[in-house]
């Protein structure tokens, strides 16, 4: 029994089996965590779908959300973005990039005591509207800004 198993492992068949086992090992934690991570929302490819997936049915446009970014991004692979919400009781800030293959870029939960201000860098495939979606006091608000990209972030 033991020697035959060893033979299998020595052969090329064994390699395939081990490869499969490794693949299974890698995939499992991914599946387990996907439950916590909002997979559906991150796989959407239109703004309405993404908004629906994060639970924002009818967001209201608000000038109290300030998006700070370059108007023209020379390199779409690194576009700095700062979002500030001046709406009281801001609970979360999400960034949506309309023309990206997957619209939702990031979703930040803002606990009490943390400023409704986020500064990060995103990738943009092409010139697109970028939407900041803010949840405040249970309601959703958004503001958008167009960023021109002269070199896309997906071509490498």
């Amino acid at each position, binding site marked *: 029994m033991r020697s035959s198993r060893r033979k299998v492992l020595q052969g090329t068949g064994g390699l395939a089996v081990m490869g499969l086992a490794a693949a299974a090992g*890698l995939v*499992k*934690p*991914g599946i*387990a*965590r996907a439950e*916590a*991570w*909002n997979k559906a929302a*991150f796989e959407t490819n239109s703004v309405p779908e993404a908004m629906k997936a994060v639970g924002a049915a009818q967001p209201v446009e608000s000038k109290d959300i300030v998006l700070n970014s370059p108007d023209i991004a020379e390199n779409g*692979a*690194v*576009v*700095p973005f700062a979002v500030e919400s001046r709406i009281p009781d801001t609970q979360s800030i999400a*960034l949506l*990039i309309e023309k*990206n*293959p*997957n619209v*939702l*870029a*990031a*979703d*930040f*939960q*803002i*606990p009490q*005591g*943390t*400023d409704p*201000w*986020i*500064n*990060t*860098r*995103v*990738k*943009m*495939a092409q010139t697109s509207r970028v939407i900041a979606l803010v949840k405040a006091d249970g309601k959703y608000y958004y503001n958008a800004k167009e960023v021109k990209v002269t070199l896309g*972030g*997906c*071509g*490498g």
Partner: protein
Amino acid sequence: MADPMKIRAAMAGDKVEVKVLMAHEMETGQRKDASGKVIPAWFIQSVTATCNGRTVLAAEWGTAVAKNPFLSFRFSGGKPGDKVAISWVDNHGDKRTDEATIS
């Protein structure tokens, strides 16, 4: 194992400003290698920041966050000497936690 993050946490007035630079490929799964094969997606999915055990920021990320992600935020209720810890988990199940002391 992934490289350590660079974290800076400093008082800015009565608030703590945190700046984090993570070392991660953030592969989108959209790119192809030289032979035309799609490079599988590999990216940070969730990030948590705590100060003395209290969560001060939680985030879920998609593939559109730039390579070697940068993140900056501010929170109140921290003082010099407190510890700020940042953790991330990627889609391979890899995780990393690093700590910095507020200055």
